């Protein structure tokens, strides 16, 4: 395969890929459903001014509880792994 032919094929494939990508993007924009996000963006400022805290503690409060438990688990694992054999009850 000569060099010019390879360039030609490469150009065609790139063009096809680009067209497909743009097509997908343009259609995706009409397909995506904003869901509760638009509603919450309208309601949120009526609850408290800081939208980030609103989402983290109001809309996704359950998520934040799990996030806090991750920290507890991390402390527990540190104590278990690094404190192995050095805790109060161990004889060694």
């Amino acid at each position, binding site marked *: 395969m000569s060099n010019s032919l390879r360039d030609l094929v490469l150009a065609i494939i790139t063009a096809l890929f680009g067209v497909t990508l743009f097509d997908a993007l343009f259609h995706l924009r009409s397909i995506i459903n904003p869901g509760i996000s638009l509603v919450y963006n309208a309601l949120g400022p009526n609850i*408290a001014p*800081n939208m980030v805290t609103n989402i983290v503690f109001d809309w996704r*409060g359950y998520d934040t509880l799990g996030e*806090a438990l991750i*920290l507890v688990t991390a402390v527990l694992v540190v104590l278990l792994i690094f404190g192995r054999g050095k805790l109060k009850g161990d004889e060694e």
Partner: protein
Amino acid sequence: MSNDGSTVLKLLALPISIILICLGVNTILGGHITPGGGFQGGAMISAGVILSLFVYGFDKNPIDFSPSFVSAVESFGALFYVFLGLVGLVFAGSFLYNVGGDFFGIVPPMIKAIFHYPDPTNAGIIPYLNMTVGLKVMVGLTAVAIAFSQFKTFEEEQEEGDDE
């Protein structure tokens, strides 16, 4: 740990720790208005305590967190968070519903008055959740630092015991 720290460090560490702790408390209490929140404020408080711990050492630490204090604060934070969630579950049918803000008007006014954070915003239980998470994060990160510093001491004691 660091018994040979410089005088300037020992002179400045405690004021800087206190300033960091005050800044963290400010961040937690203003979490629903200004940038920040419980996690960030708790990390700031913990940074102040850890600075004091590493400069003065565990034995002479002026900001001393005992293990019972750590476990009590950690348990209080987690249980109060779950309690606020259960209040929402009982009175609104949804776990962690904002009973103080009560956007949909389905909570009895007496319950709403209890959990409404008293300031011009309509934040409801968000500041209380901020505080509980702040307490948890403060104690958790500090406990990790205390644990690491103490494990090193244990190892040194063990080595000394082996030498003798």
